[in-house]
Each structure stands twice: as structure tokens, then as C-alpha cells.
């Protein structure tokens, strides 16, 4: 068993309106097989026993698929390892004596609830605006009635695997949500069953995205780099094409 000693510099903020600050904690003999979140569990057990308030942080499945966890570690959303969430990041990625700066996602559209827990309900409101195919239960034809080529299904799946964690927003200097929205628009517009509402969908989702206070895309590509599911930037391009169509349609009619 290999262990390391580290210092964590963590963002502490009592609630949405309180002023936050960084707090330093020293952790000794951290097993390098621990996950990053288990390291935070150890921190919290220690804080609790010493009469302090534990650090609030979100996590659920701890296998990288629910999208609940997320923090900026040393400036990088979900930390230094590519294509993982912090629940799948392990302490072997850090070195003895290192200081880890841990912050919440930062975006006007993701207000802090407590410590590094943020409110991502803006994402749900964008989905409510149009992130679906309007089919009712029981009104469908046989699943094989529409053939879809394997390539298209795979490309749709590449986009559909977005976990809605918000790392793309945290990574973007403009706090843009274009990758999140683009992934959903792309997933649905690639499939024949999603094409019918395509134009309306993109218009409604983009309108809601703007309303929530997310920034614009200026082609920094940071979102794609920090995405734990490696969702490609090309989905933003596809969304923009659809959006142009929607705009022309609304102007010309």
C-alpha cells in the first residue's frame, strides 16, 4: 500500500448568500488507491470528529455515469486525468506533498448552494424547453419500422452519452453551455424520429440557454477537453447549423 501526504485547499461557503473563502486542511497517509471522493470522505470523517462542519459535496453513483459529482481541481474540471469524473479519479494521480485546490463549478447560471455544491437546475430547464422527442406513451409503431444505419446510431450515441455534469460550463471562459445543449440537439436530430421537431427544438433550447445566463461560445474548445465523456466539439457546429435554419425560418417564415 502506497500512501501520500497532501494539503487540500477547499472552497468553503455556508450558503448561497454567504461570502466564501478557501480553507487549508492537511491529510496524512492517504492511500493512493483511494478515489478522490473517498479522500473527501476521509477529510469529512476527520472534520466531523473534531467538531467542525464537514465539506458539502455532491456525489451519487461513484462510477462516472450519474453526473452528480464535480469540482475544479487545481484549475481543471474533474481534475488532471482525461475522460473521467472526480469519482473515478484516484489519489495515485497526485504526488506526496502536493497541494490540491478544490473549487466548485463557477458560473452565474450555477449558483452555489453550499461549499462546492452548486444548483444546476438551469440544465433541467433547458431540457424542459425542448430536449426530447414529443412522443406519448403507447402511440408508437414497431421498433424496427424505421431502419437506422449503424453509423448514425453510433454517432447519436456519442452525443447521447452526455452525463449532464456541467464540467463543460466550468471549463469555458465564457461559462457557455453550448456543448451540453449541442450534444442533446445532435443526438436527437441525427435520428429520423427526432428530425420532425428539430428546428423548433433547437430554437427553444437555445432561447432557454440564453435566458439562464450562460455565455456564448468563442471556440476555445475547453469544454470538449474537460468533458468526462469526451463529447466532440462538432456537436456545437451541428447545433449552430440547425439554429441558423431556425432563425431563417422565423424571419422568412
Amino acid at each position: 500500500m502506497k500512501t501520500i501526504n497532501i494539503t487540500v485547499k477547499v472552497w468553503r461557503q455556508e450558503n448561497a448568500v454567504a461570502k466564501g473563502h478557501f480553507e487549508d486542511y492537511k491529510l496524512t497517509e492517504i492511500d493512493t488507491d483511494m478515489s478522490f471522493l473517498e479522500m473527501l470522505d476521509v477529510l469529512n470523517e476527520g472534520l466531523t470528529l473534531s467538531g467542525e462542519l464537514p465539506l458539502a459535496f455532491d456525489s451519487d453513483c461513484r462510477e462516472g455515469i450519474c453526473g452528480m459529482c464535480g469540482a475544479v481541481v487545481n484549475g481543471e474540471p474533474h481534475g488532471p486525468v482525461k475522460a473521467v469524473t472526480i469519482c473515478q479519479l484516484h489519489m495515485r494521480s497526485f504526488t506526496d506533498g502536493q497541494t490540491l485546490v478544490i473549487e466548485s463549478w463557477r458560473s452565474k447560471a450555477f449558483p452555489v448552494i453550499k461549499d462546492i455544491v452548486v444548483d444546476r437546475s438551469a440544465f433541467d430547464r433547458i431540457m424542459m424547453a425542448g430536449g426530447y422527442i414529443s412522443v406519448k406513451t403507447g402511440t408508437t409503431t414497431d421498433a424496427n419500422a424505421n431502419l437506422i444505419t449503424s453509423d448514425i446510431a453510433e454517432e447519436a450515441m456519442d452525443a447521447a452519452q452526455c452525463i449532464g455534469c456541467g464540467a463543460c460550463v466550468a471549463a469555458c471562459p465564457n461559462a457557455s453551455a453550448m456543448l451540453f445543449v449541442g450534444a442533446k440537439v445532435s443526438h436527437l436530430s441525427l435520428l429520423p424520429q427526432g428530425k420532425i421537431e428539430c428546428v423548433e427544438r433547437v430554437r427553444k433550447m437555445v432561447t432557454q440557454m440564453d435566458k439562464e445566463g450562460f455565455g456564448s461560445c468563442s471556440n476555445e474548445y475547453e469544454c470538449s477537453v474537460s468533458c468526462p465523456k469526451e463529447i466532440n466539439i462538432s456537436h456545437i457546429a451541428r447545433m449552430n447549423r440547425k439554429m441558423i435554419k431556425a432563425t431563417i425560418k422565423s424571419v422568412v417564415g
Partner: protein
Amino acid sequence: MKLNSNVPKGKLKDKWTQYKFDMKLVNPANKRKYNIIVVGTGLAGASAAASYSELGYNVKVFCIQDSPRRAHSIAAQGGINAAKNYPNDGDSIYRLFYDTIKGGDYRSREANVYRLAEVSNNIIDQCVAQGVPFARDYDGTLSNRSFGGALVSRTFYARGQTGQQLHLGACGALMKEASKPNLEIFPRREMMELVIHEGKARGIVVRNLINGELESYTADMVVLASGGYGNIYFLSTNAMSTNSSAIWAAHKKGAFFANPCFVQIHPTCMPVHGEYQSKLTLMSESLRNDGRVWVPQKKGDKRHPNDIPENERDYYLENKYPTFGNLVPRDVASRNAKEQCDLGKGVGNTGLAVYLDFKEATKRIGLEAIKAKYGNLFDMYKQITGKDPYSEPMMIFPAIHYTMGGLWVDYNLMSNLPGLFVLGEANFSDHGANRLGASALMQGLADGYFVAPYTAGNYLAQVNNNELTTDHEVFQEAEKAAKDKIEKLLAIKGNRTVDDFHKELGKLLWDNCGIARNETDLKKALKEIPRIREEFWKNVLIPGTTDSFNQTLERAMRVADFLEMAELMIHDASDRKESCGCHLREESQTEEGEALRKDNEYSYVSAWEFKGVGKEPELHKEELTFEEVELTQRSYK
């Protein structure tokens, strides 16, 4: 009290069709006058809520996470079964029904299981229409693969993320309805109390997890789709927040709990690294097709596995079960792994693991073939453990995965409490004593899309509820009970953390009510649980306040409920003196040491009635009768 399953009369294959026709209907214009509460937003909850709203009912949906999309259905990997018979390999509704009831070791209700198989095809149609990007063959049709316990290819999948895609499809339907005025979503809320008025479920009290406020909501019926209780063992493949508190609250208000001791253990999970381990991650069982399971012959052998020569290894599954070898069923593989570790032969830092070795297979079929078959699993293993399974054996250990038990429901998926419906993993309905792979997703969506919308209408059309508002004393009492519980917990200010108690309980259950059970161990556990519970209520340390975002308090309340529920599990396991489905009862084995099911004595659903904390619950039996299938014992030697 005699339990009535309300299974309609008639031939098995006609029951559901005839029953749908016989049901009472709510006039379309009147549907908006009814309110439905749905707790939980996994496959079952999200699909039910969306479907109710489409029909015109007013729906309020509650989840503990920050968004409905986080529910643990999202983590299901393998696939979803349906009887489409697209591969033309002889599948049918009857075969899917038969496999499911046989897989459940004949401890589920024939009529419910048949209906599940019957609606399975509609689910695939529905999901495709929603845009679920299932895997396709090169001709553009849907691709199928085979899964454990079936001899046909009936599993539909979306890479290793089928649960995610189905769940996002159901959440899409939920979001579509949430954009209309008759459906409202309440995230970061945890149900604390079920409210009963005039004998019927009429509302809930929830805690707003952001500000700690208690909120009351009334309805004409309440649907619980809050998932399973595997986290009672502390370590499981479940998500961190998965809990039994909603169903336990309903149980304490009179809903019967069925077969609580039926839990499924998965044999090929990543092993435990240390005391700090927070959850276990599952790897596909397909690994056992080529991997050989072994432990060192010598106890406490700390050599690197590659340094242990062949003649000092014990390939215990191959030795003990020469016919099936490494491919024995889940429960046998799990039981034997634990046995080896209990003997002190476990490997790794904690001694809680066995080796799964691909050396011979690599020699036999080549490295490239191994990569093609298991590449993604090997990568996942390496990423989590930091060890390379291409150059040294993997370490695996069994883990709690799924709970077949749950609240008792009738054919309508309604509990014995009128107006309380229970869907998905939270009910006991379809999997008997063991669930087949790729059937959990099927059941969740069957319940939510195609069963509960019908049976709810049938109930509401006949119920005649009085007007009830949240200032009624039943709500005041429920809110007070919730408030008292919170204040009592916060006032303890003891010396031990919540997780510390949870781990103690989990280990006790794992050791005494896990894969193999016996009377002595169960008796021991029954003595220990009240002791832990009493200490918890005297010595737990919960920092923070009630009126803030307080995750320790959330966990404490769930553990408090687990500490009560654990006792019920032990009572249930003690009563069932047969080996059945996932568990071995050591007193019930054949001469060869195989599991022995006792159909003459235990062919019933155990439905338990709550009698008070620490008091012995009362057992009600629903006898299971089989008209269609013949009961057989399995053999794998």
C-alpha cells in the same frame, strides 16, 4: 389477514387483456381533478409520472438528487430484455415469462410475470420512438445479444450504458410533461412520512434538502418508485444516496414488506481496497467466460500472484464443480469466493478478493482476442485499481447488487394500503428470489409506462376521496413526527460518525445474512442489531443544523431506518429455512452440498406487518400457485 393478490380470473395469456377491458375508467375531462404523487425518478418513477401527466392527471414528482436524471437506473450497464424474437431464434412472450419465473426460483407470481413479458415489446417500441440510440446491425435493424439465464438473444443494448439511455429517454418524457402546467418536479426532497387519511394513502411529508424545511403535499394516490435497499449493507453497487427510507416509512404506516431477505449478490466486482471504501463497482460477468478463478493454497500467502507457481494455486471452482467450473451461477461463485476469504486465503491488501486469471485464455485465443472481448472492462479495471490485468490476474469480490424484496403489491401494483402504489425495485413483484440479467430495466419501464397508468385509473375511478388539505391534523402529526426525529438525532451529539455505525451494521449483515445463512448466525445478528441501534441513538455525532443543507443529517436518517429494517431482514431470513434463488440456507442442502429448495413448505411470499421498532413483525403468507409452469430444481455439477 388474508392477502388478496387480485389476480384476475381467466387463462394466463388473456388475463391482462381482459382485465384492461374490465377496468373502470376516469372520464378524460375529470382526470385533471385528480392529484398523483410520485416519489423517485428512476426508470419506474420517471416513466410513470410522464405517463400519468400525458393522460391528464396532475402530477407531483419528488427526487433526492439535484435532477431526475441522476437516479441510479442511469448506472445499469448490460441491457433490457424483450420478447421481440427479431433474431428468429425461437423467443416468445411465453419463453420470456418462463425464463423469468424459473430464474426467480419459483418465488414470484405467475400472472405478474406473464404480464411483464407481455408488455416487454411495447417498451422497446416506446424507447426507440423517444430516440434511445440502441445498437444496430449493419442492415439498420436493432441488434440483440444473449444474457445470463437465457438461451435466446433477446437483450437490446446501447453500448455498456443501456440504463443511461433508457433513463434519459424516460427523463425526456418527464421533461416534456414538466413544461406543461400539470406536472411539477421537486428535486432535492427526501420523503420522510407517508400520510394516511381514512385508511388511504393521501400524501407525503418531505424534507427540502437545501433549507431543511418540512413540506406537506396531498394527493389522491401516492406512487413509491424509490428503488431498492441494497445500501443497508453499506458496501454495494448502489449509488450513495440509494436508501429504504420511503418504503420503510410506508411499511411503518401499515404497508406490508415482502421477502426482504431476497438480495442479489454479484460475483465479479472490483475488490475492497481499504476501510475508506465507499462503494463497489460491478464488472460484467462475461469475464468468467475466459477467466480462471483461484486463490493461493497457503493461507496468508503475500507473494505477487505471478510468483505463485501453478502447483501452489487452488482453482477452487474448477476443482469443486468440474462440469461448470468458473461458469457456475452467480450465487455459487459468490458464496465460494467469500468462503475462501473467510478461510484466510483471500488476496490483496484487505484479504477480501480472489484472483481472476486470463493467462491461459490469452495463450489459447491470443492477446488480440482478449482485447476485443474484454478491452473496455480491462481498461476500467486498470483505471480504478491502477493494476494491469493484461500482465497480472484481476482481483474480484462479490458485492450486493439488487434487492428482489420490496413492498408487497397486488396485481395492480398497489400495496395493502389503498392508494399506495409501488413500482420498480421498490416492490417485490416480478423477480422472485433471483433476478435475471437485463430484467430490472424491463420491469421498471413495464411498471411505469404500461401497468401503473392503467391500474391508477381503475383505482381513482372508484375511490371517492374527501377533500383533504395540508392543514389537516394527519399532516400536522406527520410533520411533527418528522420534526421530532430530526431534533432527536441532532441533540445526541455523541462520539461516533454515521458512517461508522453504517459500516458496523453492513458488516454484520454481510457476515450473517449475506450469501449463505444459518440459524446460529441469524440469531446472533438478531441480538446485535438492537444493540447497534441503541448505541446509534445515544452516541451518533451529527454536526450542523436542521435548517441548512446538511448531508450528514440526511445520511443519519437513512441509517436510522436501515437499523430498523435490518431486523426485519433477519426475521425473514430466519423464517425461510430453504435455499432459494440467490441465497443458500446451510441447513437446506442436498447431499452433494447443492442448494435445496423446499416447495412444499416455502412456496409463498412472506409479507411482513410492522408491529413496532424492536418488536417481532407479523408474517402473512401469500401462497404461490403455479398453473402453467412445472417446478424444477437446478443442478450445475
